[in-house]
C-alpha cells in the first residue's frame, strides 16, 4: 500500500521555471539621471522623467546595458546585436507613465544555461531570456495589514521607480523545490561574482517568482500557476513544496488546477490564491518610439567578455585543482560568493580539505538550521580556522570539536576560551589511563572477553570511555590504551 502511494507521487513530476528580477548595480536609474537609492526619505530621488511628467523622455543607461551584457555572457547566453525597447501598458499608481519600458520580442540576450550542483550531481537549467527594464515605484499602504486591501490610505515612493531591472527567465527544466533553490543560489552567485548586482534580497535587489505545474502520470503537462512573493530562497523551496502538494492533491482528487497567481506566506507555511488569471491581462506591447533600438557592437561585447571576473564554475574548477577538493564540495562552496570567500579565508590558514569538510558539513548544518547567512555567522573565518587547528594539533578531539563549533556558533567566543571554560581539551595519557582502568573494572565480563581475544566488544568499551570523558578523549587513542591494558 505504502509502495503504491510512493509510486503515484513519483508520477506527478514537478515542472518548475523561475523568473528573477534583479536590480543592476548602476549609480543612476535606467532612463534618467536620478540616483539609485535604498531606504532614503521617500520621493527625494525623482525627476520629470521618472515621475512620468508630460513631455519628459527616457534616455537609456549605457552602464545598465553593459551590466546586462555581462550577465548574459556569464549565463552563457547569446547576446544579440540589436535589442528593442517596448512598452508594456497597464494602469497602476506605481507606474507613473501608465506603461513600463521593457524589452519584449527582441530582448538583449536569449538561450543560455546554468550548471547547478545538486546532491544528485550537476543539473543544467536553461535560460530562456534576459532583458532590461525599469522597476516600478513602491506602494506604501497605510494601516495594519500593510497591503492595499483593508488599508486606510495609499502612498507612493517614486525613489525606486525607474531603477534598472534585469529580468531573467529560466526554462521549465527544474524538477524539484531543492533544485529550484540551488538554481537560485547559483544564479545569485554568478550575478554577484560578475558584479552586476549586489543581489541583496532584503533591499529587493533580487526577487524570484516561479511558474509551477505538475506533469500528470500520463505525461501531459498540467496547468501552471505563478508563485510570487518569495523574498528568500528558503521560501522559494518551501513555497514550491507547498504549491506542488496543493496541485498534486487537487489532481489526485480529480479536481482542476486553475490558472492563478499564488502567494506563499512564510508565517503559516501555506500558499494562498492571490488572483485568478483566467482573464489574462492584455499589455498591448509595442516598440517604444521614444528610444532607439540598442545596437551592440560585436567588438564591445568581446571586450566585455574578456574582462569578466572569475565565474563560480571557473572558481569551482580552481578549488578542485588548488585545494584538492571533490567537485561536489567545490561546487557547494562556490555556489555562494560569500561562502567561497569564507572558505578561502579559512583554507589559507589550515588544511584546505579539513576546512572544506568542516564548512560544507557541520558549519552549513548549523547555518541552515538557524537560517543565518555565512556572512552573519559568529564563527568568523579566523574562529573556524582556530577550531580546525585545535583538532589537527590534537588539543581537542573531533567529537569535542563538533561541540566546540556549536558553542562558538552560539556565543561568538574564541575557540580557545570555550575549550578552557568547558574543559574540552583532549585528555592526556595519565588521565585517560585512569578512565580506562575504571571502565575495565566496571565491566569485568567484557574485559575478560577481550582478554580472551574477542575483539568485537572493544567498541563497547571504547564507547564507555567516550561517555565517561564526555567526548573529550580521542576514540582511536582510547582503543589503543584499552587494548594495551587488556593484552597484559
Amino acid at each position, binding site marked *: 500500500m505504502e509502495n503504491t502511494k510512493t509510486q503515484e507521487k513519483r508520477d506527478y513530476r514537478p515542472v518548475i521555471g523561475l523568473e528573477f528580477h534583479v536590480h543592476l548595480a548602476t549609480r543612476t536609474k535606467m532612463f534618467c539621471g536620478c540616483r539609485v537609492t535604498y531606504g532614503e526619505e521617500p520621493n527625494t530621488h525623482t525627476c520629470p522623467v521618472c515621475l512620468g511628467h508630460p*513631455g519628459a523622455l527616457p534616455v537609456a543607461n549605457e552602464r545598465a546595458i553593459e551590466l546586462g551584457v555581462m550577465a548574459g555572457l556569464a549565463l552563457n547566453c547569446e547576446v544579440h546585436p540589436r535589442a528593442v525597447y517596448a512598452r508594456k501598458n497597464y494602469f497602476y499608481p506605481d507606474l507613473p507613465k501608465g506603461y513600463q519600458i521593457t524589452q519584449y520580442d527582441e530582448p538583449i540576450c536569449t538561450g543560455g544555461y546554468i550548471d547547478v550542483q545538486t546532491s544528485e550531481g550537476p543539473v543544467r537549467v536553461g535560460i530562456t531570456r534576459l532583458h532590461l527594464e525599469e522597476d516600478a515605484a513602491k506602494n506604501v499602504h497605510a494601516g495594519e495589514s500593510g497591503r492595499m486591501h483593508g488599508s486606510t490610505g495609499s502612498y507612493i515612493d517614486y525613489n525606486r521607480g525607474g531603477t534598472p531591472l534585469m529580468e531573467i527567465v529560466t526554462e521549465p527544466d527544474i524538477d524539484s523545490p531543492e533544485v529550484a533553490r540551488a538554481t537560485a543560489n547559483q544564479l545569485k552567485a554568478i550575478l554577484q561574482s560578475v558584479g552586476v548586482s549586489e543581489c541583496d534580497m532584503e533591499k529587493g535587489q533580487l526577487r524570484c517568482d516561479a511558474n509551477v505545474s505538475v506533469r500528470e502520470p500520463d505525461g501531459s503537462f498540467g496547468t501552471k500557476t505563478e508563485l510570487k512573493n518569495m523574498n528568500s530562497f528558503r521560501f522559494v523551496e518551501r513555497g514550491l513544496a507547498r504549491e506542488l502538494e496543493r496541485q498534486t492533491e487537487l489532481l489526485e482528487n480529480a479536481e482542476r488546477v486553475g490558472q492563478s497567481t499564488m502567494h506563499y506566506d512564510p508565517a503559516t507555511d501555506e500558499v494562498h490564491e492571490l488572483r485568478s488569471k483566467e482573464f489574462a491581462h492584455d499589455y498591448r506591447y509595442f516598440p517604444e518610439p*521614444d528610444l532607439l533600438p540598442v545596437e551592440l557592437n560585436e567588438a564591445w561585447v568581446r571586450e566585455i567578455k574578456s574582462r569578466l571576473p572569475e565565474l563560480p564554475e571557473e572558481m569551482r574548477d580552481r578549488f578542485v585543482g588548488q585545494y584538492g577538493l571533490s567537485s561536489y564540495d567545490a561546487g557547494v562552496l562556490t555556489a555562494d560568493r560569500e561562502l567561497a570567500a569564507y572558505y578561502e579565508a579559512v583554507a589559507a590558514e589550515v588544511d584546505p580539505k579539513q576546512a572544506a569538510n568542516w564548512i560544507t558539513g557541520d558549519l552549513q548544518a548549523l547555518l541552515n538550521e538557524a537560517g543565518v547567512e555565512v556572512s552573519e555567522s559568529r564563527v568568523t573565518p579566523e574562529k573556524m580556522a582556530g577550531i580546525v587547528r585545535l583538532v589537527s594539533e590534537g588539543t581537542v578531539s573531533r567529537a569535542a570539536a563538533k561541540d566546540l563549533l556549536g558553542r562558538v556558533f552560539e556565543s561568538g567566543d574564541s575557540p580557545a576560551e570555550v575549550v578552557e571554560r568547558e574543559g574540552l581539551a583532549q585528555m592526556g595519557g595519565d588521565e585517560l589511563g585512569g578512565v580506562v582502568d575504571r571502565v575495565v573494572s566496571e565491566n569485568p565480563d567484557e574485559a575478560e572477553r577481550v582478554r580472551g581475544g574477542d575483539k568485537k566488544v572493544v567498541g563497547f568499551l571504547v564507547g564507555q570511555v567516550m561517555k565517561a570523558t564526555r567526548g573529550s578523549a580521542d576514540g582511536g587513542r582510547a582503543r589503543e590504551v584499552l587494548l594495551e591494558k587488556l593484552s597484559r
Partner: protein
Amino acid sequence: MPAELQGLTAYELAERIRGGGVSAREATEAALDRIEEVEDDINAFVTRTPEIALEKAGRIDGRLRNGGLNLWECVPMAVKDVLSTRGVRTTCGSRILEDFEPLYDASALVNFGEDRIMVGKTNCDEFAMGSSNENSAYGPVHNPWDLDGVPGGSSGGSAAAVAAGEGWWALGTDTGGSVRQPAALCGIVGLKPTYGRVSRYGLIAFASSLDQIGPMTRDVRDAALLLQAIAGHDPRDSTSANVEVPDYLAGLEDGVSGLRVGVVTELTQNEGISPGVREATEKAARELAAAGAEVGEVSLPHSEYGLPAYYIIAPAEVSSNLARFDGVRYGHRVPAGGVHEMYRATREEGFGDEVKRRIMLGTYSLSSGYYEAYYAQAQKVRTKIIEDFRAAYARYDVLLTPTAPTVAFGIGTKVDDPLEMYAQDICSVPASLAGVPAISVPGGLSDGLPVGVQLMGDHFTEPTLLRAARALEKATGFHFEARPR
C-alpha cells in the same frame, strides 16, 4: 500696433531692434496691444503672459548694449500650449491639464534662449489631435481671414496669432500636418522639420514617432531664422539626430535654377482636392519652372495608404502616451472610491471626445489578436512610403503638393464627421510618416481665402527646401498682411 512695426517680418523687426530703431519692449507692447485688440474675436491664446514678455523684453534691451545677442531673441513669440513651460500653465488644450504648471522648459525653448519674449501659450486641438482647432477645451479659434471659419489645426492658435499680427511668429507642433495645414488655412508659412531635427524633450507627446516642433511665420526667411533658433541635437531626446545644424539663412536667396521639382501626381490629382487648391498647386509648379527649376511629375504610389496608416499608428501611440494622465501625480483629479474608479472618473471628465476616440482606436489596434492586422500592417505601409520617398528623391530635390485639400471651412461644419475631418491630412501625413521635412507656403487665394502649397525635401535637406520655398514665395507675390484689418 503701430502700422510700421506690423508691416515687418520677424527678421526685419529683429534687424530694426538690433539697429536701435525700436526697442524690444516697444515691439512687445505693440504685440500685447494687438492681442488686446483682436483676441476677443480670435481666441488664439489659452494663457497670456504679458508680464513675462515685458520683463524678458527689458532684459533683451539690456543685453542689446552689450552685443552677443542672437537675432531671433529680439522678436516676441507665441508658443503652442503643448510645449512645456516652467511655471507657466501648459494645458494641451485639455481640461485634464487645466492647472498644470510644468517643472521644466522644453528643450526647443531652452535652445531659443533664456530671455525669450513669450507673449502667451496658444490654443490648439486637445493634445494636438484635430484639424480645425474645434477640439479644444478652451473654445474654438477663429480664422483671422474669416471669423466664422476654422484656422485649421491642431496648431490653430499659433497660426491665427501670426495671421492676426498678435506677434510676428509662433511655435507649433506637427504630427500629421498640424503646423502645415493651419499655416495654409491662415495664409502664413509653416515648417515641419526633419524628424529628429528639433528636440522633442518637453513637447507633450501626441505620437512620439511623428511629432516635431516647427516654426509658423510670416515668410520663409522667418521660418529659417526660427528653425535656426530651436534646432539641434539634444542628449535628453534619444530620437534627436546628432547632425550638425547648418546656417539656414545662407544661400536662402539663391533661387531654384536647376533645382529638380517633382509634382506628386497622387496628391495633386486626388479627387478630394478642391479645384481652387489644385489650381494654386499647378500655378506654383509653373512659377517654379519659370524661375528656372526643372519641374516634372512624380509618383508616390503608396501615399494613398498614408492616411489609414497614420490613423492606426498615431492613435496607437496616443493610447499609451496619454495613459500617464491618471490623476495620481498631477493634473485634474476626480476623487472616487477606489483607484480604478478614480482613473475612470478623472479621464472621463478630463478628456474630450476626439481624444477618447483616438485612445479607443489605438487601444484596439494594439490589442492581442488585432496587432498584426492593424499596427504591424500600418508599419509595413510606413516602410513602403519611406521607400517611395527614397525613389522620388533619387530623381527630384523637392516634391510639390497641396498642403490641405481645401481652404478654411466653417466652424462646426465637419465636427460630426471625423472621417471627413481626417481627410484634411491627406497631403501632409506622407511626409510625417517618412520623417522628411515639409513646408507650407501661401500659394494665393481661392474664394478669397488662402491656399497653401507644400514642398517636401529629403531628410536634413532643410537648406534646399527653404531655398525652394523662398523662391516660390517670391514668385507668387503673396505678401503677408495682418487680419482682420
